[in-house]
């Protein structure tokens, strides 16, 4: 897997195997014409359904995920007058407590920034082909997001 990122004049879209540099994202959306910046940082949680999570692992259908992230920013900018927008998602192994996703937008006024940021994270979670595998303290692991159907799990032998 390789890092993929695309930088355009008014958007930052990336999937990365590295720790997300939140300050770099914040700097990117900072413009003199902005009266507000809204930033959402999704972090990996140490519990799920009553079980202790030790590690999370993300995989993506990378070209499609990047395409959808770009479409989401286009849609957000169509709905709200944004100055800049950034969507960065981490892939691979993410230790508990670290950022797995960062969404940031800047706008002249805070209400647009809040609304657009929420739209971006909510829609990203529903539409982007990205999957999270939770590794538990008992050695098992399972793909998250399958709670409505029968749960699929298997013992992870650490290969």
């Amino acid at each position, binding site marked *: 897997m390789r890092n993929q990122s695309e930088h355009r004049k008014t958007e930052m879209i990336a999937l990365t195997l590295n720790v997300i540099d939140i300050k770099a994202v914040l700097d990117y959306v900072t413009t003199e014409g902005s009266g507000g910046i809204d930033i959402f940082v999704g972090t990996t949680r140490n519990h799920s359904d009553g079980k202790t999570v030790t590690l999370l692992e993300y995989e993506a259908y990378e070209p*499609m*995920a990047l395409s959808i992230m770009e479409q989401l920013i286009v849609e957000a900018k169509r709905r709200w007058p944004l100055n800049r927008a950034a969507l960065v998602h981490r892939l691979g192994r993410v230790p508990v407590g670290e950022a797995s*996703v960062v969404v940031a937008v800047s706008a002249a006024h805070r209400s647009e920034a809040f609304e657009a940021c929420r739209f971006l994270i909510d829609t990203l979670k529903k539409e982007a*082909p*990205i*999957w999270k595998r939770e590794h538990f303290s008992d050695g098992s692991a399972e793909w998250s*997001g*399958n709670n409505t159907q029968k749960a699929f799990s298997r013992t992870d032998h650490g290969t």
Partner: protein
Amino acid sequence: MRIRLKLFSVAKDIAGFDEQMFELAQNADTSLLLQRLIEAHPALADWKGTLRMAVNWEYATHSHKLKDGDEVAIIPPVSGG
């Protein structure tokens, strides 16, 4: 026609591969490809109702007509964020 099929997450684990080429008749659609996949890996049938499909990086219906060289992906329930 030849179609490249990509699997992810639960679907990849059940089928045991992440990419495979399929030979399909002209006019085949996404539902036919899914049916072929489930015939080869019956355990996927339990998940059928939850699987979305994508053609060339865009979500597609289960009646999307395929053409030679298309890249189709099986998209189990996503859980990014």
